[in-house]
């Protein structure tokens, strides 16, 4: 407690000093025009960890004309669909101007906290479900419980997992737009040549398919990736095997369990048994699939549009259950609102209208290759005839990472390198995972402390 006080006094004093310096600089170099931002504390406004008071959601916005800054990471084939939805929204709501800003996801998560703190960020946006807790803990985004009630969103309309995963410390921070999972893509020509009539669904049929493909002359039918999406395969397999990669309360990394080790051993065995080349470089398993060099690949359903644009004869099926339980990794795009918007009544009201509209019109989003999160929208036939329909039927098998702040960094710093090393054969899966799990637990403990305080 004592140290905290010291810190804050010092910080305040140094802020005052800096303020003086800033004034001096601005006067000296007449750079005032370039400035104009706010300090982190100013921008934070009334935030400070408590839930901000949002204006009541009425379903309509009839205030003065307002502009919403809207950030998302739909840089791929999904971008034009989102753009179309935004344009339609603006036609129907002429007094709200939405300015979209599309940034690569990697840059998006780096810039968002800094930008919102500097008052230069978005009012609304879309982020992945596993990032909500981190940004909630950072006080970047605000709770949306009122909005969820206002639109009439209830748990019945969503799978339990996706609904629960948007809640951090008893408050809802995200309104689900879609869910997207890992899927199995296969080359239909190769399958026909190998005499495979049905896509494999379990370990036996999967290994049988690989053998048939090899017999048909496709020497490396399934490339085991070392980087993306190797860790997503690992999550899926661990869940299938009855394991959990992380403790729900964020206190411990459990991916080093026997279940996890078995999962990684299976990923590596594909290389050892000759189904996959070793040292698969970044993305090359997908490129090889598109070039017809390999027959099966597991990747996200967001690749659907890309494959449709190609001339490849391909099919899609749920990820087979290699172990005991039907489980697959999934993530979800969720709408959020920042503390920047919650500080301005008009913006907050308009932002809620925007999010509500987007949620209700998520059937259009299915065209982007995603699965609308709302059951009612799916039941309304949004997925009719779309490739991902077969994946959507398995929505109850989908599993998400727990809402733990900082989990993304833990995964990239500890888990992903371990999975890569295991598949590369640099160390045994057991060594790789147990070592990394110790490191990950250490990071998670630190996170609990920093984000908790």
């Amino acid at each position, binding site marked *: 407690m004592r*140290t*905290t006080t*010291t*810190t804050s006094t*010092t910080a305040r004093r*140094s802020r005052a000093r*800096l303020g003086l*310096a800033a004034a*001096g*600089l601005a006067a*000296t170099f007449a750079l005032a025009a370039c400035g104009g931002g706010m300090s*982190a504390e100013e921008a934070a406004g009334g935030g*400070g*960890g408590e839930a901000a008071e949002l204006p009541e959601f009425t379903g309509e916005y009839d205030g003065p004309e307002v502009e919403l800054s809207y950030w998302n990471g739909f840089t791929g084939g999904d971008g034009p669909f989102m753009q179309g939805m935004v344009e339609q929204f603006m036609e129907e709501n002429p007094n709200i101007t939405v300015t979209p800003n599309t940034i690569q996801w990697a840059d998006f*998560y*780096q810039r968002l*906290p*800094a930008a919102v*703190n500097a008052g230069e960020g978005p009012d609304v946006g879309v982020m992945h479900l596993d990032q909500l807790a981190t940004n909630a*803990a*950072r*006080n*970047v985004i605000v709770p949306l419980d009122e909005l969820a009630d206002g639109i009439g969103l209830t748990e019945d309309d969503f799978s339990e997992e996706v609904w629960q995963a948007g809640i951090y410390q008893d408050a809802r921070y995200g309104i689900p737009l879609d869910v997207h999972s890992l899927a199995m893509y296969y080359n239909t020509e190769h399958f026909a040549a190998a005499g495979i009539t049905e896509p494999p669904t379990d370990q036996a049929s999967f290994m049988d398919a690989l053998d048939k493909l090899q017999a048909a002359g496709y020497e490396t039918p399934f490339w085991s990736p070392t*980087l993306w999406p190797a860790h997503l395969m690992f999550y899926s397999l661990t869940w299938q095997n009855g394991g959990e990669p992380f403790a729900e309360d964020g206190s411990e990394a459990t991916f080093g369990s026997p279940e996890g080790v078995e999962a990684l051993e299976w990923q590596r065995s594909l290389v050892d048994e000759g189904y996959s080349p070793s*040292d698969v*470089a*970044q993305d090359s398993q997908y490129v090889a699939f598109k070039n017809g060099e390999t027959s099966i690949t597991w990747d996200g359903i967001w690749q659907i549009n890309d494959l449709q644009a190609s001339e490849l004869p391909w099919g899609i099926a749920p990820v087979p259950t290699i172990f005991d339980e039907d489980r697959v990794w999934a993530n979800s795009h969720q709408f959020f609102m920042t503390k920047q918007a919650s500080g301005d009544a008009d913006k907050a009201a308009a932002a809620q209208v925007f999010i509500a509209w987007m949620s209700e019109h998520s059937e259009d989003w299915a065209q982007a290759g995603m699965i609308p999160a709302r059951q009612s929208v799916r039941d309304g036939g949004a997925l009719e005839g779309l490739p991902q329909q077969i994946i959507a039927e398995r929505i109850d098998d989908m599993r998400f990472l727990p809402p733990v702040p900082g989990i993304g*960094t833990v995964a990239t*710093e*500890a888990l992903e*390198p371990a999975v*890569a090393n295991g598949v590369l054969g640099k160390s045994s899966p057991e060594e790789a995972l147990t070592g*990394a799990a110790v*490191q*990950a637990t*250490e*990071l998670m403990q*630190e996170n609990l*402390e*920093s*984000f908790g*305080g």
Partner: protein
Amino acid sequence: MSTTRVAAPADVAGAARRGPAPASRRGVPAHGRLTPWLFLAPYLLLFGVFVLAPVVLGGWISLHRWDYTLPGKPFVGLENYTDLFSGSATADTFWRSMRATAIFTVFSVPLLLVVPLAVALVMNKKFPGRNLFRAVYFAPYVLGVAVVAVLWRYLLDTNIGLINYGLGLVGLPDTTAWTTSLPAAWVALVGVTVWWTLGYNAVIYLAALQDVPAELYEAARVDGANSWQQFVHVTLPGLRPVLAFVTMITIIASANMFGQSYLITRGAPGRETRTAIYQIAETGLRNYQMGSAAAMSYVLTGFLMVLSVAVFWLLRERKAR
């Protein structure tokens, strides 16, 4: 953030020796007591806020678990440092990145010292087109790291890149994954860096070569020295102060390598080509673990200071002999 290059230690030493202007000899320009401080004020303001204060503030931050987006910034003493010297996850990634920086520095610095010197020697003569050649070799430097890296990522593409195609044409292996495999990625990063900054060092050498008094060469020739002996006994000693300068700026530049790795290899394969400064930026400015990142930058700085002193000492020692 890259600030302007450092000056040669020899220069600084020289400046110190020469000391302030011997103005008193003829009387100092009259000025009030405050005048010098008024002249200094704008600079000192910037210097204080953006150089002195950060050095101190960095040390302070490194003693905390400091995430500026979070309200709590607990004081943790030396934990951020002890973490770097234990078996923790942070230590692992940090030392891996230090190793990457070391590998890059060890392989790039000798090349960047020797190749530009060779180029400068070839050009150290008046001949038609000399300035044109000089400009051509210097041009990539003007383009900056972003253009250079974007361009070379294309040329180094494994499948459709010009480099692999060219290698294939002359019968060499043409499937090297220049950006995703080792040691090829290091060859690529060092090669691109030499291509990019060769002209910079060459131009400095060239200017220094022209300052070596012609009389020394004549004297050496009278003594019957051949070209190589002239190079060793006249050129190199004449270049020594500049050599010290070029060595220092090249080491510092190589140890701060970021753009090439950020844009060409994205740290791949794995994290193998992620340099220390890249790791510091990612830790502090992407994951917002600023205390840890500040501690890392102090450790890196410590290494660089020791290295600078060593280089300074080595080059001085020989000079004294």
